[in-house]
């Protein structure tokens, strides 16, 4: 009961409110040693201190009152705010493709929860239509909430559930699939779905937003439109990520689920294809292909679902001076697979060799990836590399570390046989290892250099 009346307040602030019979959403007048204050008492975010009471004053602003200063307080009214997302029926338009949107708890469209400051996702077609009416010009939408978790809580259980749900939807004949997802682990899920949902006849597009849609300059609406367009009208039947190309509101990029990586903690244009060019540019009105070769859309509903994952896989990010017992401990804990993220061409120091040898003898599957993110693992170049291979570490070409981790978990979910795992790991399903790196696959420009400055000023919007 009290929990409802005094939402979020604890300790001394709670005692104070109870003492004066002032409720959350109550209109309060307060006398304090700093003067007179009036406003509506708001809920307190749970992680904040217990020495302040939050009020919304007449001008719409919020302020906090230090309870130490309060000498008197009175509730003179009550008005509870009501949160609702407007729901308008998503119109059906003959001739537009049917697209299925799966929700995973990401904040692709949302509004603010006043209490916690968190965002409430808008999700049903009606809610989405209320927020982004332009969607109705792109496709006929159906939605399904598979689960609601934060991006960082997405894991093997969710990958499997999602893969199965996608399989069912494809069998039912949908023309495209969009998955709303938080951006933090978008690349992990994209990789997992690439391996679990093979040979899909329609586009499977993962999309998120870097700025929640309660902000006027959010990227959410445009990202959603791009994703819906790629899923409903696009010809690329692969697992892809669709996010902003530049930071400007312009075009989106379609990235292969196995080659994409989040490269900035907060930029809108954070997702980049690594070691290759993106698949295509996407706008609300069309797709411009960059890659000549892709898997085209088909009319059939043949898709293979491999819903497997072993959680006995880990990653080791190598650092100079790393001690061998770290590996020993992991092996003793029963981990069956280790993905190393090594320096340079794929190295760790000699001190680790005995532990690696021991792991190998215990049947642990070990793979090498790169801290440099760009480039190939080359373990033949130096002795150390050859030594490591002799001790059972397998180079993974230019597979991204996170992708290698996901793939190893997926492989070990199916078999424990070293050769079979190796075959699964090194046989590309969708370019997780590419045979060649094009010249424009690595472009990390340096600001300040005259030609880059010119490019940034004139071209990069």
């Amino acid at each position, binding site marked *: 009961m009290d929990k409802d009346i005094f939402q979020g307040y604890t300790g001394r602030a709670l005692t104070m409110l109870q003492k004066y019979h002032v409720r959350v959403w109550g209109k309060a007048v307060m006398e*304090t*040693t*700093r*003067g*007179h*204050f009036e406003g509506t008492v708001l809920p307190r975010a749970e992680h*904040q*201190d217990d*020495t*302040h009471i*939050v009020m919304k*004053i007449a*001008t*719409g*602003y*919020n*302020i*906090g*009152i*230090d*309870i*130490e*200063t309060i000498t008197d307080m009175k509730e003179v009214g009550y008005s509870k*705010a*009501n*949160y*609702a*997302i*407007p729901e308008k029926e998503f119109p059906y338009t003959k001739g537009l493709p049917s697209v299925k949107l799966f929700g995973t708890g990401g904040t692709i469209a949302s*509004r*603010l929860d*006043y209490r916690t*400051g*968190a*965002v409430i996702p808008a999700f049903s077609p009606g809610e989405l239509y*209320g*927020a982004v009416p332009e969607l109705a010009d792109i496709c006929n939408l159906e939605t399904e909430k598979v689960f609601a978790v934060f991006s960082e809580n997405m894991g093997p259980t969710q990958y499997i559930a999602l893969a199965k749900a996608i399989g069912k939807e494809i069998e039912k004949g949908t023309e495209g699939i969009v998955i709303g997802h938080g951006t933090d682990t978008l690349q992990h899920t994209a990789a997992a779905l690439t391996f679990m949902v093979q040979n899909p006849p329609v586009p499977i597009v993962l999309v998120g937003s870097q*700025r929640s*849609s*309660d*902000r*006027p*300059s*959010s990227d959410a*609406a*445009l990202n959603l439109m791009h994703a819906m367009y790629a899923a409903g009208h696009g010809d690329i039947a692969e697992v892809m990520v669709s996010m902003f190309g*530049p*930071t*400007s*509101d*312009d075009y989106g990029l379609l990235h292969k689920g196995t080659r994409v990586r989040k490269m*900035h903690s*907060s*930029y809108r244009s954070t997702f980049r294809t690594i070691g290759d060019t993106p698949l295509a540019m996407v706008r609300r009105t069309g797709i411009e292909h960059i890659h000549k070769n892709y898997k085209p859309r088909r009319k059939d509903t043949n898709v293979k679902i491999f819903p497997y994952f072993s959680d006995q896989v880990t990653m080791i990010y190598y650092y100079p001076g790393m001690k061998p017992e770290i590996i020993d401990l992991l092996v003793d804990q029963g981990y069956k697979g280790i993905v190393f993220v090594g320096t340079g061409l794929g190295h760790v120091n000699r001190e680790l060799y005995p532990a690696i040898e021991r792991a190998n003898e215990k049947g642990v599957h070990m793979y090498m990836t790169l801290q440099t993110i760009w480039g190939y693992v080359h373990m033949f170049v130096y002795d150390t590399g050859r030594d490591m291979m002799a001790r059972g570490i397998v180079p993974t070409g230019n597979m991204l570390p996170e992708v290698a981790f996901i793939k190893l978990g997926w492989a070990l979910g199916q078999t424990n046989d070293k050769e079979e795992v190796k075959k699964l790991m090194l046989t590309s399903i969708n370019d997780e290892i590419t045979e060649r790196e094009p010249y424009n696959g690595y472009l990390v420009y340096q*600001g300040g250099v005259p030609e880059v*400055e010119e490019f*940034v*000023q004139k071209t*990069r*919007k």
Partner: protein
Amino acid sequence: MEDQFDSVANYEATRSKIGYEPRKIATQETYNRIGFMSGLEVHQQLKTRYKLFCRCPAGIFHRNDQFNAELIRHMRPTLSELGEYDGTALMEFKTRKNIFYRINNENACTYEIDDTPPFLLDKKSLEIALEISLLSKLNIVGEVHITRKQYLDGSIPTGFQRTAILGVEGHIELKNKTIRLIQLSIEEDSCREISDIGHNRVFKTDRLGMPLIETVTYPEMTNPDEVMEACDYIRFLNRSTGKVLTGPGAGRQDVNVSCKGGTRVEIKGVAHTKWIPELTHNEAFRQWALLEIKEELERRNIKGENWKINHTPLNIDKTTFPEPFKQKYAAAGEKFIAVALPGFKGLLSHFTQPEKIFANELAERLKVIACLEHPNMFHTEELTPTFDSAFWEEIRNSLNAKKDDALLIFRAPEDDVTTALEVIQERCEMAFDGVPKETRKSFENGTTIFERVLPGADRMYPDTDSAPIPLTNDYIEGLKQNMPNDIVERYEQMQEWNIPEDTYTYILSKNLYPIIHKIITELKYAPLFTGVFFGQHLKFIEGQYKKGQNFSYEIVYGLFKFAQEHKLKSNILYPMLSIIYEQPQMEFDSVLTDVRYKPHSKEEILAPVDFLREKYREIGRVQTEQAENNWIMGELRHRAMGNMEYKTLMNELKKR
């Protein structure tokens, strides 16, 4: 045949009908009659090293073409707390503006363009803002909550301004009245607009994010001069801390005005306080005029509910546009749409502001909302007609319009025609209700134009990127220790010193009081002399001479001190100031040489008097004692400079 409507006569008739008086002759009775009411939102930039939410330097500005990168954003309306879209929000979205931001690496980082979340609020800014809050007698909050205030005009790339209340319920003391303050907030400043043409609006981000405070008064001012007085008071109070920026754009105000039966209309970004009286005067009368239009519609028995415009596209080749008109506009490939406003005859040329008529209200909205560049509209009641009555008769026929309908033609790119028609319909419908809620842009001549629909209250959200900041009693008490005294106290002290009142505005606006106070109390100069020296002579120098780099008012204090230490009489301060003002880096000793100062004893100064008297008797045109003494005075003036006060010299001459 179409009657030639006399628009100018109608403009003048409607102006006198509403009882418009120019401000010069308006009295308090005038303002009481129309129920003038006004409040202020005074903005002031703080003088800090950093911007408010990132560590970019504050106060470094660039020319429009100095930028390292440019990016584009669009602003989308978001859902309000109650799940609805704000009216302004929808209007802004209707305009479909591409917003360009120009970034210079020197003063903007990824925070300004909303690609990095905010850093902690700048401590120094908070401290200055709190000091001003205390001076404004506000009740200081216990915890500062950063709030997002939505702006969809593009002036902030996030689409909202981060702002926070520091105090509520304060007051200031005017000469005859106490004005209550609603609140004071600290906020990040917005972008500066470079251009706004068609669907493209361009901003630069140098000013964006600078710390700014906003002092909001209750709407308690009842005449235009009172509004200016309150505004000056608040600005002088801010400056009295010595911790705020001065110069163009450092202080700006929004002025809210309404008249009896009118609506709160916000005049945005008034750059100079001296513009306020004319602007508020005209705005109150504009509302008064709009209320008269409303009554006129009632008298004509036209009802707003079913009122609909009627329109038809004009075929540019088949319409008898005058040839020069055709040549000017036909090539652009725009659409020309004729519109009839049923029953509106005589209203388009109805007076609203000096030299402005109701038709301007339509044209301005067409520019802002439908992005149609001026001249976007031609009509039957232009003060200087574009078309003759025969032409309008043809249009009237093609619209099947009645004699008492007003007609207009607008030109627009095809994509904007629908919005333009909606805008015309909407603004005319508003005429039935009187005064629309809106913000207006000010001009130096005292008139205003439509800027935006006034945002609703539902545009404040807690900032989920920032934690609340507690303000402890110890911290607040500590700030109180170093505060300047009240403006009202300074005012009274200057009166006691007999410093003429007409110098106060200058002295307070330049925050010269602390220096004057120091010179009088520490150096023991005469208060009246000191006050006049600063309030009149320094003001004169500022108007006439070019200020040297690094000149500061502190240097003038140094000058007074130097004169005192060298036992120089104060009349030498005048020529020295002229030099030091232009060349502040000069040593005072060299300035003495520059003004050709030589020490002279009383005897030396007076030695030539007898000789001069004889000479004057030979050459003087007017042979009176006074004329003679004046002439001798002039001859000896330079010798006396710094050695003897001129008054003393004159007394000596009179004795001999």
